[in-house]
């Protein structure tokens, strides 16, 4: 299909100022994202993943390509993003490690959130990612504040916040993007339209013709992009990031993609049409398309991509073997870090003998 090539320019020219190494790095990141989720799914079936498992199957490309447009540093001076549950690719791209993610999913005591919060809900300000919370939309105001501070300090840093088609319906989204737009904050808002908010289809989420249309209502710049075309996504994200960095304020980018699994592993997604899922899987998979682009333009060979795959597989197996023996947290960890004031009181009746003076 014609839209599989990123550009109609000469085949050998790599678009958006990218070089071959960067193309291969994006390939590694998107492949790593999918492979890591596949490994997690096996661990889930073995009951080693505790709680839910969320797949981003079919939308890994836009996660990686958007985050790839950010200035990624590990010393607290780079750009900052806040992902959604299906942005494992963004997390990995900005610097989270597979070992951290596996520890999180296995509720280990040495996981970044020390067993207190799940999955990819974790934070590192040095590497520039802020874990979301489950009430969706809340991170839009938070990221408005993060980027307000970049302005207050005169830093040329940019924020990127992800929101799904579903959570554009929340008050927090509205207040956050409006605030950021009024204050001209350097914020890029990625609206991932993957067709579904749990079981609710997009048509039941909004009467608007597109999510990009909403930007005008806030005085924000807008863009809309094929979310499974990684280079197109990168190009749109990069333009928005540059606009933000140059003082041009907020951009809302609608990224159209498709969630090929249920909301989480427990969800049999019977409300979805299997033929539709199949159509996206066979003809519009972001990794397949990216591979075709890389090889079709002569930017990479099938062989070297295969070598990257093999290395990822090997490294993930090593990571999992390394992480598995880690202990779950000590139960007393439940009492710590509520405030700076030390552990909260425990249960007096669990003492031996029970001591009500410890109530």
């Amino acid at each position, binding site marked *: 299909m014609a839209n599989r090539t990123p550009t109609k320019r000469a085949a050998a020219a790599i678009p958006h100022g990218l070089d071959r190494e960067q193309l291969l790095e994006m390939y590694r990141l998107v492949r790593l994202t999918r492979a890591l989720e596949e490994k997690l799914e096996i661990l889930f079936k073995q009951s080693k993943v505790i709680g839910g498992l969320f797949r981003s199957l079919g939308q890994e490309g836009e996660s990686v390509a958007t985050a790839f447009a950010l200035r990624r540093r590990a010393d607290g001076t780079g750009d900052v993003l806040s992902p959604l549950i299906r942005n494992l690719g963004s997390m990995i791209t900005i610097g989270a490690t597979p070992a951290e993610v596996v520890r999180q999913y296995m509720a280990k005591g040495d996981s970044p959130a020390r067993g207190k919060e799940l999955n990819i809900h974790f934070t590192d300000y040095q590497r520039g990612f802020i874990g979301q919370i489950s009430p969706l939309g809340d991170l839009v105001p*938070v990221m408005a504040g993060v980027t307000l501070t970049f302005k*207050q300090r005169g830093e040329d840093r940019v924020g990127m916040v992800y929101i799904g088609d579903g959570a554009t319906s929340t008050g*927090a989204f509205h207040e956050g993007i409006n*605030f950021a737009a009024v204050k001209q904050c350097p914020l890029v808002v990625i609206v991932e339209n993957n067709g579904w908010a749990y079981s609710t289809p997009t048509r039941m989420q909004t009467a608007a013709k597109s999510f990009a249309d909403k930007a005008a209502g806030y005085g924000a710049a807008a863009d809309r992009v094929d979310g499974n075309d990684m280079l197109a996504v990168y190009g749109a994200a990069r333009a928005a990031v540059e606009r933000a960095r140059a003082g041009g304020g907020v951009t809302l980018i609608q990224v159209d993609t498709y969630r090929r699994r249920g909301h989480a592993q427990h969800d049999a997604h019977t409300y979805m049409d299997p033929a539709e899922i199949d159509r996206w899987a066979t003809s519009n998979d972001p990794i397949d398309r990216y591979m075709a682009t890389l090889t079709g333009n002569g930017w990479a060979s099938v062989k070297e991509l295969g070598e990257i795959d093999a290395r990822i597989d090997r490294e993930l197996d090593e990571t999992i073997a390394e992480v598995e023996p880690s202990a779950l947290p000590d139960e007393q960890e439940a009492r710590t870090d509520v405030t*700076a*004031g030390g552990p909260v009181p425990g249960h007096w009746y669990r003492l031996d003998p029970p001591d009500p*003076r410890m109530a």
Partner: protein
Amino acid sequence: MATATDSKQKPDHVRLTEQGKPVTLLEAIREGLWEEMERDPSVFLMGEDIGVYGGAFKVTEGMLEEFGSLRVVDTPISEIGFTGAAAGAAHMGMRPVVEMQFIDFIACAYDMITNYVATSRYRGSGPVPMVIRGPSGGYVRGGPFHSQNPEAAFFHTPGLKIVYPATAYDAKGLIKAAIRDEDPVLFFEHKWLYRRPQLREVLPNEDYVVPIGKARTAREGTDLTIVTYAAMVHKSAEAAEVLEKEDGLSVEIIDLRTLLPLDEDAIVASVKKTNRLLIVHEDTRTGGIAGEIAMRVSEKAFEWLDAPIQRVTAIDAPIPYSPPLEDYFLPQTDDIVRAARWLANY
């Protein structure tokens, strides 16, 4: 200490303490905010109408001119928006102080405060040192949405601190402590106390803080303890005068000052001394903080009690507007006198 040049540049309305003049509770808060803004460049203010207009109650008057629009941030009407933005700024190392134009509107940001801000440290997303402040309380004919005392709605949320001062001295010392605290602090400012002339006092002309989590003995006594806070400290003091004059009763008043964390030691110590406890709060009765205080005393000082714990509170209703309704709804001095009398005679 401020240099002579500094004090010359400072507008008069934030120099009252410097000039040895008494300040109201509102002026004390304003001075506290101003001094923290001067002390620490990471402190900044956000809220509706706080900059150009100086705030609905003029707490932040003159601050935009002094500190500029990057540190005195007028916001759209967006309690979720600016509360979340404050959290984001705090993540980046700032010390935001946001104003709820009336504390009643804090309910709009309930999710952001309880789910996001209060859990951040626990989730491993780091401390969120921020202050949410605003005018609260009744006795001003403000009606259902300009009179509330929503502290109990947040009292149940681990991770937060709640401060509710009753005096100008405490208000200034506690707003400074709140700004310097490593955790999110809700700072309630009773609007009936804001400009009350009886509360004017000369404050020390030096940098001081009042520690969060410490109650104050507002009045020493031996017959009966009243545990209370905010405007009710003053109603209780009036009642204590009456009880002393007419009944010869010696009433001890504990002004909590901080509701979270609760100064259980101070409460228990006073109950052990007087053996009778009356809890007074302006908030409504069911689910009010009195219930938790009574339970703590039951856990820690049951054997010292000579009478059942009692409480004086507002009735379980929204806050009405018209004077006879609001007066009936809210605790009055005479209510405290009658309840204390009953308790003393038990």
